[in-house]
């Protein structure tokens, strides 16, 4: 069974290896210049409270030629790789055998279809995980100078930091979990739908949906947040509105600048520690916004911030990867159920 699995996967493995080799050589060819620029940028020895932001801005402005393009392309590749594996390795695994009726050949050799699927899932699944794991290593290695820089100054352009939705999904070990999950999703969709093209479409849609749900709704709950109370800087005030009983509600962006932290929520509190609810200041009844924010500044309001510090990166990575591995096992179980049912085509 190993032989057949390898024989059927061979072309894809060779094509994948060629792409990986090309990516690795391009990235390792351009990386020394990137490292040189970073080492001489002053960022490695900068002070977070004073000059880091400016140095990062200068470093990022100095990045030229192919380097920024490669950085974003490699992020795109990390997003695409698990989806591609799910669509092109996973979905056809059973569905194409049904489409071409070759399952009648495969399942009439002296080997049960359960064993047939076990070997296929294990071999192709491990190949998928190894491929994306290796890609993650190469890309993380290439991108490390830029990752470090943008984490120090996330306000430069797109908000990029390691716990953020773009870098978290494309670094470390979660991509391996995505690859396993996307592959198992493809196999199961193929075994249930039994037609290759619809199974591919369902796999892509399902994978994208699950990744969005994970990023936007679940990841923030995977570790207990830390809390901090900081003074409300007047520059952070975005606006005011009328709350219950004509009280004044202040809206502000979190005045929190811990490096690499992922701010989950913030609340403005008054002297008592309760959510702030006060009467409108005289200045805020007028039309001058600066006078208004200055008057709010005199109230000595504070913000409580719930956040995940940068140090939680690997905890979150392991937990998210574990969730995807559990989903992978559940899907694999479903695919066994699907091929053992009485009707196949």
């Amino acid at each position: 069974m190993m032989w057949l699995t390898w024989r059927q996967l061979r072309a894809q493995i060779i094509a994948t290896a060629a792409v990986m080799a090309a990516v690795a050589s391009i990235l390792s060819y351009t990386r020394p210049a990137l490292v040189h620029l970073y080492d001489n940028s002053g960022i490695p020895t900068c002070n977070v409270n004073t000059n880091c932001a400016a140095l990062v801005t200068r470093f990022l402005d100095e990045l030229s030629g192919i380097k920024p393009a490669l950085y974003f392309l490699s992020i795109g590749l990390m997003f695409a790789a698990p989806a591609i594996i799910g669509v092109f390795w996973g979905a056809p695994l059973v569905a194409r055998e049904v489409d071409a009726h070759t399952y009648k050949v495969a399942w009439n050799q002296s080997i049960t279809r359960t064993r047939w699927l076990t070997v296929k899932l294990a071999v192709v699944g491990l190949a998928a995980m190894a491929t994306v794991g290796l890609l993650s290593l190469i890309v993380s290695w290439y991108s490390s100078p830029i990752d470090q820089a943008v984490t120090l100054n996330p306000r430069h352009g797109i908000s990029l930091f390691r716990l953020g939705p773009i870098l978290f999904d494309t670094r470390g070990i979660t991509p391996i979990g995505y690859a396993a999950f996307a592959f198992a999703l493809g196999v199961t969709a193929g075994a249930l739908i039994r037609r290759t093209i619809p199974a591919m479409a369902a796999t892509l849609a399902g994978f994208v949906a699950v990744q969005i749900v994970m990023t936007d709704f679940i990841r923030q709950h995977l570790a207990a947040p830390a809390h901090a109370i900081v003074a409300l800087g007047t520059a952070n005030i975005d606006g005011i509105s009328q709350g219950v009983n004509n009280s004044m509600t202040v809206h502000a962006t979190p005045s929190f600048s811990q490096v690499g932290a992922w701010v989950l929520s913030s609340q403005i509190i008054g002297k008592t520690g309760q959510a702030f609810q006060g009467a409108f200041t005289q200045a805020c009844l007028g039309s001058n916004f600066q006078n208004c924010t200055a008057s709010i500044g005199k109230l000595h309001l504070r913000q409580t911030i719930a956040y995940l510090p940068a140090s939680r990166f690997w905890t979150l990575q392991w937990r998210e990867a574990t969730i995807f591995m559990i989903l992978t096992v559940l899907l694999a179980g479903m695919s066994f159920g699907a091929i053992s049912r009485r009707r196949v085509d």
Partner: protein
Amino acid sequence: MTDALRSQGLGMRYGHRHALADCTLSIPAGHVVGLVGPNGAGKTTLLHLAVGLLTPASGTIEVLGGKPGSGPAQLAKVGYVAQDTPLYAGLTVADHLKLGAHLNPGWDMAVAAERIERLRLDPRQKAGKMSGGQRAQLALTMAIAKNPELLIMDEPIASLDPLARSDFLRSLADFTAARQVSVVLSSHLLGDLERICDYLIVLVGSRVQVAGEVSDLLASHRMLTGVRADPAIMPPGSTVISASRDGRPRMVLARVAGPVDETAWPGGPITLEDLVLAYMSRATDAPRRESALKGQS
């Protein structure tokens, strides 16, 4: 000796449609069995149940004493050539033989290689580029080299040209002559099977119409001439299978209980084709007769 195939009240449904109903068979080992019936009669369903690609909705089926597809040992005993002889389009002839060798403990590579050479198949040719006849021969080679006790084939020659058909049947005949094996093959054309079968199953409208050894079937049926299909005047214990409606003289094909008095009931022996056509037309006429009766009442 265990039967090659034994089923009891076997049934299969797709949704509300019966693909096979109340199929009870007992086929002794050692026969070449022809499974004949029109398209859509349930032949493929029966064969898929026999190799374990389907599990029955009702009833039981045993193949060589075991549950179809139940494990490696059972799978090893049964060779299967599916309808339209599917193969891996991207794999070569040699790859297919390697596949067989890796997945079957009883694989006989010498037999496979000898057949490939005799059939002049190019080992490096991909299955996707082969003709229907070549594909059928490769599929048969794979099933034979597996060393099965029972070889099941689903319309293996339906799509072949006459020459390829003849080659295929000769290959099959060589194989059955050389070993103690049972063969079940289906076709919607009797002509294909007449040459090689010594056991016949007629399947029409998801039901088995008649099954038995060809010689027994021929001996127990007669074509009676000049009689009406009236039970009162038929030979005792006989059953009318079909009667010509407008032909002169009247012809009645009947299953008879024993030797028939030639002077009272003139007639003669039948051919296998007469028999199959009679059972097929009886089965297709039955619903029409029933609805006609309902219309009268």
